[in-house]
């Protein structure tokens, strides 16, 4: 893998370090893009009544800046380091699923490009703020296709992150070196583990909200325009994701500080166990504070008080973390090198951002702060200040490891001091602008906001332009920097025990932990097979197909069919990839408590199932929400005539009017069909476990047949409902039925495709008594689909 500039390498790589570099370069590109947008609107806001932008252009620029920085810069940059460093820190040769890792990256890149491209579509891009509040974000008020494309970009990013989550949890749970117990795991890896666990629960709800938004925009449903759903439904979806997201952005940054601060203080971190405990507590509370974004809505006073109390309470664990980071410095021998300066700078930003955050948690102060520049100042200190400064620290810290060369220390220090001053100048004045509304493209001269805005804009230019010095430093040092050696900082973790840059497979022999020491057993046989190369084109082609498909659905349907064809063809290629000598082979049996007995694939599938469960429970919550807010809802309980249930369809109920109910008999039959298919799937697995290939084929075919029957009956039901006028646009009962049951149907179809693939492989004798992971994991997925139906059936047919 020596071809540094080979196109083949960078387009088809699956090596975790290459993917890390790709993430790093891409996230930097997006950061400069979104930062450039910010400098533009700082010019617009420099003084009152400026006209650089129209209101519409300004809203697009602000929206793109927010979305891009939060979702395409901060998190992915953290994951650039996570991709590069985590596998090394835990002693693995690569991620658990190298090809999925590449897929995550390409989904990330193309979703970002999709967002950028939405700018140039007719009518412009999304101009509704990064929170995309409904009903403003629905077609009625934001008709341009750019908004649809932006929502598609977000869905694609959610997919990328879900795949990443599966990969990182499996890698960290199963690939650690022998003897590296949870308590010995380095803190950066811990930070990433917390991040992905929070992601696992936070991103599917965003996906659910976006699916419903897209259904409103494309299919013409009215979840967010009707009063039964509307603004509050979206806000609950969005902030259930949105507030944990803040901690998702913060956790990798804190993980970085836990590495940098001790390394440069030359002392172990203070209170490691307490920090990890506080961090866990904060991760849990982060899911219980989303309501503090809704203090100004019509939620009840009690709900607001509870959310206010939890939001104030979350300051406790973060305060402990901050104080313990500072306590680490005491009696140290502190090297104030650039990574350390950025680390200390991040703590300084976090103190300001954290304290002003307590103000925001107050339900009373919120009466003025919500929607004002105070909030802008606060979250930039946390997300811009703390996270970006920690990430820049990480860049200087691991630059020598990644490139083998040292950066220029003097330029680095100048970069730090001017960045810190510029940054404070932008955002501190905003704490005095709590009367000024956010997202206004201009303000009247009489408002008296000029002075603070002058300072902020000047600060913005100082901060923005000094980043060019960072670029210069990187480019210069890549060519001329002095060699770094293995361990320029005297760090203790594994990445510092191997050459800089590390060889393609990181370690010659797998490291082991004996008592308190990391050792490389001499002459010991390596547990890995040699990997000659790790290139595969399929992650990229799947991504291209998906992008075309999404663009097609938004704008031009035939394109979607082409996209689907590309995806399917690539999937066939993916599953036919020859593993021999390719992709870092897994060392089985290295998993540690409580994951010793479970395979990579199975653990990955369980993580994925968790994400799917979150997705479905959020969609179902949406259904329950609109149903409980509707005065009349068709229910079989209203219909006393038993015969009516045999037919389903539109029925006249005295006192209520005409309502639609579903055919319970047909639904019950279909439920039995699906449950039986679970049984046949289990029998298929049982057959191959006993080496019975013929039985496997029969039971797989039976499962396929039952699954197809389920879909045919479903199609028959839908055709009947449509002919009676119960269509997706005929109100919320129909819309929530078609959307939820349709989403389940899409999962059934995906399962059927997988089963069809298993059957062809079985006919080619691809499964044996010893090797049947595909059957096992498809089986798990299939059972999940069936279990979900067991919830949907009573919810939609019986109640």
């Amino acid at each position, binding site marked *: 893998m020596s071809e540094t500039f080979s196109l083949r390498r960078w387009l088809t790589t699956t090596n975790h370090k290459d993917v890390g570099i790709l993430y790093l370069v891409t996230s930097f590109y997006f950061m400069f893009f979104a930062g450039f947008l910010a400098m533009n609107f700082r010019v617009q806001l420099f003084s009152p009544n400026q006209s650089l932008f129209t209101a519409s252009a300004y809203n697009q620029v602000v929206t793109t800046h927010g979305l891009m920085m939060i979702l395409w810069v901060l998190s992915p940059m953290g994951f650039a380091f996570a991709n590069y460093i985590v596998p090394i820190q835990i002693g693995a040769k690569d991620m658990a699923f190298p090809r999925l890792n590449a897929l995550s990256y390409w989904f990330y890149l193309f979703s970002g490009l999709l967002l950028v491209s939405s700018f140039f579509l007719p009518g412009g891009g999304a101009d509704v703020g990064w929170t995309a509040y409904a009903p403003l974000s629905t077609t009625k008020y934001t008709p341009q296709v750019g908004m649809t494309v932006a929502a598609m970009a977000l869905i694609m990013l959610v997919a990328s992150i879900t795949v990443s989550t599966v990969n990182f949890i499996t890698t960290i749970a199963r690939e650690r070196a022998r003897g590296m117990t949870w308590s010995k795991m380095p803190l950066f890896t811990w930070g990433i583990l917390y991040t992905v666990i929070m992601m696992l629960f936070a991103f599917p709800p965003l996906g659910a909200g976006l699916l419903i938004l897209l259904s409103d925009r494309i299919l013409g449903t009215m979840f967010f325009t009707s009063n039964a759903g509307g603004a509050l439904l979206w806000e609950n979806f969005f902030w259930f994701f949105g507030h944990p997201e803040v901690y998702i952005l913060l956790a990798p940054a804190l993980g970085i500080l836990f590495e940098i601060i001790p390394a440069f203080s030359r002392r172990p971190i203070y209170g490691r166990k307490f920090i990890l405990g506080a961090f866990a507590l904060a991760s849990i509370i982060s899911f219980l504070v989303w309501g503090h974004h809704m203090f100004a809505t019509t939620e009840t006073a009690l709900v*607001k008080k509870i959310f206010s109390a939890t939001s104030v309470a979350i300051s406790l664990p973060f305060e402990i973390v901050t104080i313990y980071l*500072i306590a680490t410095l005491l009696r140290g021998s502190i090297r104030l090198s650039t990574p350390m300066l950025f680390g200390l700078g991040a703590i300084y930003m976090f103190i300001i951002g954290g304290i002003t955050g307590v103000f925001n948690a107050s339900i009373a102060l919120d009466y003025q702060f919500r929607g004002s520049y105070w909030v802008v100042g606060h979250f930039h200190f946390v997300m811009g200040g703390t996270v970006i400064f920690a990430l820049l620290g990480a860049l200087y810290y691991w630059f020598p490891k990644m490139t083998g060369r040292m950066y220029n220390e003097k330029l680095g220090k100048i970069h730090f001091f001017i960045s810190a001053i510029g940054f404070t100048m932008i955002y501190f004045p905003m704490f005095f602008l709590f009367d000024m509304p956010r997202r206004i493209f201009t303000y009247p001269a009489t408002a008296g906001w000029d002075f603070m805005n002058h300072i902020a804009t000047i600060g913005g230019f100082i901060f923005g332009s000094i980043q060019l010095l960072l670029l210069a430093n990187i480019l210069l040092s890549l060519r001329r920097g002095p060699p770094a050696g293995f361990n320029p900082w005297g760090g203790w973790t594994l990445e510092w025990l191997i050459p800089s840059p590390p060889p393609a497979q990181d370690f010659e022999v797998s490291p082991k932990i004996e008592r308190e020491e*990391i050792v490389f057993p001499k002459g010991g046989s390596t547990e890995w097979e040699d990997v000659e190369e790790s290139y595969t084109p399929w992650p990229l082609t799947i991504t291209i197909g998906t992008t075309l498909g999404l663009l097609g659905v938004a704008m031009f349907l035939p394109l979607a069919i082409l996209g689907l064809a590309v995806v399917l063809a690539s999937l066939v290629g993916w599953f036919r990839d020859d593993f021999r000598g390719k992709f870092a082979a897994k060392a089985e049996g290295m998993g540690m408590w409580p994951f010793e007995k479970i395979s990579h694939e199975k653990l990955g599938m369980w993580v994925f199932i968790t994400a799917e469960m979150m997705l479905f429970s959020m969609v179902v919550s949406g259904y329950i929400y609109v149903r409980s807010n509707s005065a009349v809802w068709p229910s079989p309980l209203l219909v006393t005539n038993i015969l009516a249930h045999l037919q389903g369809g539109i029925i006249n109920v005295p006192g209520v009017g005409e309502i639609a109910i579903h055919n319970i008999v047909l639904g019950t039959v279909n439920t039995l069909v699906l449950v039986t298919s679970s049984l046949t799937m289990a029998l298929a697995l049982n057959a191959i476990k006993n080496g019975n290939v013929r039985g496997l084929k029969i039971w797989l075919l039976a499962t396929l047949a039952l699954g197809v029957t389920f879909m045919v009956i479903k199609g028959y039901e839908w055709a009947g409902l449509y002919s009676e006028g119960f269509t997706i646009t005929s109100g919320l009962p129909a819309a929530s039925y078609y959307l939820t049951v349709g989403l389940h149907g899409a999962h059934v179809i995906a399962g059927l495709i997988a089963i069809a693939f298993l059957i062809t492989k079985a006919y080619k004798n691809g499964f044996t008594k010893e090797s049947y992971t595909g059957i096992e994991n498809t089986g798990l997925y299939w059972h999940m689909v069936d279990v979900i139906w067991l919830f949907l059936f009573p919810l939609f047919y019986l109640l």
Partner: protein
Amino acid sequence: MAYPPPADQWWGLFYYFSTLGAIIGGIVIAFLVLAAIKYRYKPGKPEPEDAPKPGTFPKDRGHLKYLFVLSFVTLSIISTLVVGSFSAFHVLTTPPDKGLDIEVTGFQWAWGFKYPNGVQTVSNLVIPVNQTIVFHVTSSDVKHKFGVPYFKTSIDAIPGQVGEIWIKATSTGDYDILCYELCGVGHAGMIGKITAVSQSQFNQWLENATKQK
């Protein structure tokens, strides 16, 4: 300067938060900077005994008792913040008396007002001084946020829902109404005006407006 209700409550709480925040923030930042300077490396300074060694797991350190002290101090401080917030919240959400009810409807991009007797105005609202005004706020299209920054209060305007806030002007004059939620291209210009006049002037104004209706 005396603030009119309910801004007096808000400012009182804000000063309490700010004073505490400035003191605590100042102490912690000073702690950070002084620690970094005091313990910085100087030539000849020996490495700490427990300095990280490549390939060796660092020793754990830290005492449970400090954790308890820290948590106790923090919890006592933040509980005063919660209590203060809840009591100010009670004032902000509870009009002192029945007052004058005004129905407010946000729309793209202005504010519509409706007096109890049916008189309607757009963007400009005339109110009597020294009387409680209760706003019942909703929206007829997208989400807006009805804010009267001088009185330090505001509330979401949500289609299909009605939110309530109140103010009481203590001196005559003009006060801004701003929109604090992005509501489309007219968001920045969604500025209204409250004019507080004496009770007799208000009565006269309302009488005229009722006649013109």
